[in-house]
């Protein structure tokens, strides 16, 4: 009798592939499982990471990677509770910070002097980065992080600094986005909450900011499991516009049958020098481009860029400031298939400039493999191999879907089951 209430066996945890691009496209980094792969685009060669601070490379799934705004720093962190800060010049690990819990998100302050990371308990920690240690040969001693703020026991999904560096934004799986004033001494904690951006009805999965010369303070864009992308005023936290992407996502034959969670927004990325936002959606083969009208404060679908051929559902998006290329990756680790335990596939989209409202025909184009910067060498490094069997894609897409819902969607128990679990309680016994 009790068996029907037991949890199904926990599958091996799957980690989605992540991608990050250097701000001036000097290099591209890809994380798949515990493997961190970096390709130097200037030299056109693969980078081998040097761990000279004594520690090892990541031992468990990497959950977050990021370049600093200046491009000097790179941070990687994940389930092995290590936050590694790398110099992008030498690709030496200049510092390894131990976290008490698994790390879910990282951010680097705009001036590159602080690294923030969030753990599974909803605490955001901050470490100051010794800028001298960057150039010096001796790796700075392994630092201790100071707790800065906390979302009460909610998994934090994304961290972001506002474009002007004034605010620090954190999003969690309890539908909440918190905007905190980034203090002068963050090691003493960030206590002043500027606003809460509330409106999402499911977990918030990703954050990005949009800004132009006219609006240097910028606006916040968030994607969520409720299949919407929302535009917020950062300072007041007020909701300016909501863009429902459910209609645009998912192949039509699935419509109505698929559960709601399947059009969850997985990643957002703003296209530099434009007000376009690229959106990756669970179940969409391609990306949705949203146009953000900053003076009218609206967010609308500009175009759906579909990717022909493989079942390419991006798991992570990245751009560099200089190139105007959008890098996408799909893949997952721990697929349970002996032949190909993990999958990573990289695609690139270019020509966003042409996506003006009047010219609908010409649009962004998906580059072929031989047009991708770095060519075959890059693909070999980042993907692990050049060509990938079609079958693996669908397995990966399926695995990712379950892993995301397991992590972020709250378990719903039926009333009977809840009552069943309370059966031993003293106050329940009284009734009988």
């Amino acid at each position: 009798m009790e068996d029907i209430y037991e949890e199904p066996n926990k599958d091996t945890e799957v980690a989605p592939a992540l991608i990050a691009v250097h701000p001036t496209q000097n290099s591209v980094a890809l994380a798949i499982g515990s493997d961190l792969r970096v390709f130097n685009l200037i030299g056109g060669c693969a980078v081998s990471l040097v761990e000279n601070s004594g520690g090892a490379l990541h031992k468990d799934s990497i959950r977050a990677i990021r370049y600093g705004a200046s491009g000097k720093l790179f941070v990687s962190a994940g389930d092995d509770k290590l936050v590694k800060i790398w110099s992008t010049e030498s690709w030496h690990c200049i510092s390894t910070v131990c976290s008490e819990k698994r790390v879910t998100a990282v951010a680097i302050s705009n001036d590159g002097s602080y690294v923030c990371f969030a753990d599974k308990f909803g605490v955001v920690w901050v470490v100051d980065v010794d800028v001298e240690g960057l150039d010096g040969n001796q790796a700075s001693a392994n630092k201790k992080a100071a707790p800065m703020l906390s979302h009460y026991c909610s998994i934090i999904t994304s961290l972001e600094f506002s474009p002007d560096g004034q605010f620090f934004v954190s999003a969690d799986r309890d539908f909440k986005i918190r905007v905190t004033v980034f203090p002068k001494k963050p090691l003493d904690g960030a206590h002043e909450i500027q606003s809460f951006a509330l409106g999402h009805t499911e977990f918030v999965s990703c954050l990005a900011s949009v800004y132009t010369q006219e609006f240097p303070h910028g606006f916040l864009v968030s994607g969520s499991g409720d299949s919407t992308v929302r535009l917020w005023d950062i300072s007041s936290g007020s909701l300016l516009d909501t863009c429902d992407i459910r209609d645009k996502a998912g192949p039509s034959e699935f419509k109505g049958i698929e559960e709601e969670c399947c059009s969850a927004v997985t990643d957002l990325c703003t296209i530099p020098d434009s007000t376009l936002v690229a959106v990756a959606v669970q179940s969409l083969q391609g990306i949705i481009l949203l146009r953000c009208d900053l003076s009218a404060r609206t967010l609308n679908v500009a175009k759906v860029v579909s990717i022909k051929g493989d079942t390419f559902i991006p798991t992570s998006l990245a751009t560099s400031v200089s190139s105007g290329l959008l890098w996408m990756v799909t893949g997952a680790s721990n697929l349970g298939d002996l032949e190909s335990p993990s999958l990573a596939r990289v695609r690139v989209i270019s020509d966003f400039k042409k996506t003006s409202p009047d010219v609908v025909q010409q649009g962004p184009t998906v580059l072929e493999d031989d047009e991708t910067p770095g060519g075959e060498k890059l693909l070999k490094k980042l993907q692990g191999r050049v060509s990938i069997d079609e079958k693996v894609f669908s397995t990966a897409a399926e695995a990712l879907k379950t892993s995301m819902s397991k992590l972020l969607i709250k378990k719903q128990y039926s009333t009977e089951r809840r009552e069943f679990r309370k059966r031993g309680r003293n106050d329940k016994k009284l009734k009988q």
Partner: protein
Amino acid sequence: MLENKVNSTHSKSTGLPRKRFYRARAHSNPLSDSHFPVPVAPSHVDYSLHYPQLFPSSDEAGSCKKIQFADIGCGFGGLLISLSTLFPDTLMIGMELRDKVTEYVKERILALRVTNPGQYQNISVVRTNSMKYIPNYFEKAQLSKMFFLFPDPHFKEKNHRRRVISPFLLDEYAYALEVGGIIYTITDVEELGDWMKACLENHPMFEALTSEEVEADPVTKLLSSATEEGQKVDRNGGQTFRAIYRRIAPSL
């Protein structure tokens, strides 16, 4: 049948609900995922449901008053009921995590409204986890008073993060309180009293009230006398430990 049941839980002489029918566990785990509805944002809180006489229809939002006092972990609602007549023009709400206790307070307020027409219209109760959902109920600087009376002590160090007063949660309370707003804490557990005082003392957005200010405040006397927990401590001749702090603007 149903009517019969409802009546039997209320005292025949006073019409108030009787506690023995609302037995609940003394503690509730604030870390567990919740199964009750939470308003998406403060603007979604339906005031007409909580204060039906003051907000006749749910459409007339906007111009109306907002909740100013929040009793976090209101228990059986003793403080709310005392405050209701002391500040008849202030809207206040009790927040309680235990469903049966919330039900009791709800019934108690309804019964009081019936027996005292025109009174007790400014108090209400909601079942929620205030450690998680304060920003869903209150806008920035909306509150002028927050009460944390006899909270769970959570002695084990492992469970300190379950304490309702903690350095990080104070950030959220400071957000909900207006500058000059007051946070009242009281406990009969010395260790917890020291902890709450230390948290408030070390927070850059709170300063202690002077002892004269504490004496002059009519509310401070209610902290130990109005609540059920306070009366129990008093009966047993126990000691109480107060920490009363004012929300200040952070120095830049």
